[in-house]
């Protein structure tokens, strides 16, 4: 059994093997493996007795269920209007400079992926970003510098 198959079994034991268990299982895999591979989707289909196309259809619908390899820390910067108005651009510039990658890319050591995302619900404290599930708001280039430095050393 591969690592992914074991994880799928563990998640299916926890959430059940119904169709309605699919989303929690996919979320569990995305959390542990950082992304959901094609072979993993086929394995989930077998475990839940679904077609691989059904699993693929669901997995590819959701922007937080990544189907391509991501870094250990996925940074999602909010690009919706109020964050945009309050300096999202300089935040992204700071992140790109520090991590030496562009939006949509992953660092060579597979530690960070930089993405943009739609409204995170921190409009009153924009600009904002998520690192995995953790929100950071009221960002300034200095603040981003401190946060990322800490993650680099993790």
């Amino acid at each position, binding site marked *: 059994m591969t690592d992914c198959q074991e994880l799928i079994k563990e998640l299916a034991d926890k959430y059940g093997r119904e169709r309605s268990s699919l989303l929690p299982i996919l979320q569990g895999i995305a959390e542990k493996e950082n992304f959901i591979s094609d072979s993993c989707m086929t394995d989930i289909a077998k475990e839940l007795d679904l077609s691989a196309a059904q699993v693929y259809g669901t997995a590819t619908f*959701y*922007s937080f269920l990544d189907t391509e390899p991501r870094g250990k820390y996925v940074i999602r910067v909010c690009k*919706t209007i109020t964050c945009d108005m309050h300096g999202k651009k300089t935040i992204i510039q700071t992140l790109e400079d520090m991590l030496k990658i562009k939006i949509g890319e992953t660092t060579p050591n597979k530690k960070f992926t930089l993405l943009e995302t*739609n409204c995170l*619900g921190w409009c*009153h404290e924009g600009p904002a970003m998520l690192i995995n599930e953790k929100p950071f708001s009221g960002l300034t280039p200095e603040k981003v510098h401190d946060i990322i430095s800490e993650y680099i050393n993790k």
Partner: protein
Amino acid sequence: MSEQTLKRVDLIFGEYSNIKYKVLADTLKRSNDEILKDLLDSGLRGRGGAGFPTAMKWKFTAESPCDERFVICNADEGEPGTFKDREILLRVPRKVFSGMAICGKVIGAKRGFMYLRGEYRFMIPDLMKELEIYHEHAQKLGHDFKIEIRLGSGAYICGEESALFESMEGGRGEPRNKPPYPTTSGFMKKPTVINNVETFVNVMMIMRLGPEQYKKLGTTDSRGSKVFSVSGDTPIPGIYELELGMPLDRFVDEFGDGDTKAVQVGGASGFCVPRKKFKETVIGFEGVPTGGSMMIFNSSRSMYNVLHNYLEFFEEESCGQCTPCRVGCQQLRKGIVAVKKGEKKANYLDQLMKLSESMKITAKCGLGQSVANSFSSIVNNFKEEMIY
């Protein structure tokens, strides 16, 4: 302070009762008819934005013949400029769970779910702690109603109720045709009450205060208070609980930075109100309705950029199922870019307006239908900014 100051309310975020789940315990002793009558008398309308009378929704669901019914709390808050549900769930989750449990009693459901947006995953540990306390008390009270949390994964469309059911059932978050409505066929095709986070808190507060006291707040068409998410060009961004039915000019006096050009009421899917219409615009179901999002723009902002940002949002968040929305959102965005660049003549905007009007009547769900709201209100009121 001048008499112009808007009345602040402390209903939603007010303190808990001294005894945990006291309102729930008291309400469980009452008959379903009494509870529904109080809800009806209170005039409560859904706080997610659409404003359907809550008592009717519950009554229809309770009356739908079926062996199983569900209660769902829609916490998939994703409208740009809205962050009130997060604040409610961080500060007073007990009130939300109480409201859900009351609904469970009234409609005869044994299971309830909270569908929380993926962006709020960080809140799960705290919510689980409160759920543990809830389940302890529910058991003591002999109330057979369990609540589970389900997580979204970054799809705005899942805030649409039928897309949310699809998502919970393990599918793509694609809205269903209506009818049938959730009151007869919702989650797992069973009768389902789905309400916004804030609606459940209001239910709980109506049970605590009684409909008469609750009704003292707001106007005839918009009873009670509302939690507003204020952001943009304002010196005091944040969460404010205010009476419904206030005129927009008073809101701007209080929250604007003195140079307010426009207010987007109800998020990207809502309406953009220009300065000249502040006085005549009322915030509430009788005027411009809102799920709580109030974004303020001052004169330094380009309304073209604002509209472009919205359209990009809709283009990405459209589920792609129906053509009017999938293609329409793309064409609207490309269209305003072409006009701005001079590749299309200014009168091309009229054609785009017609397209947005077609989307309003042909799109399958609220997402595609409401793009015309912000599109036409921005293009009509700020035409010169779209062209030059």
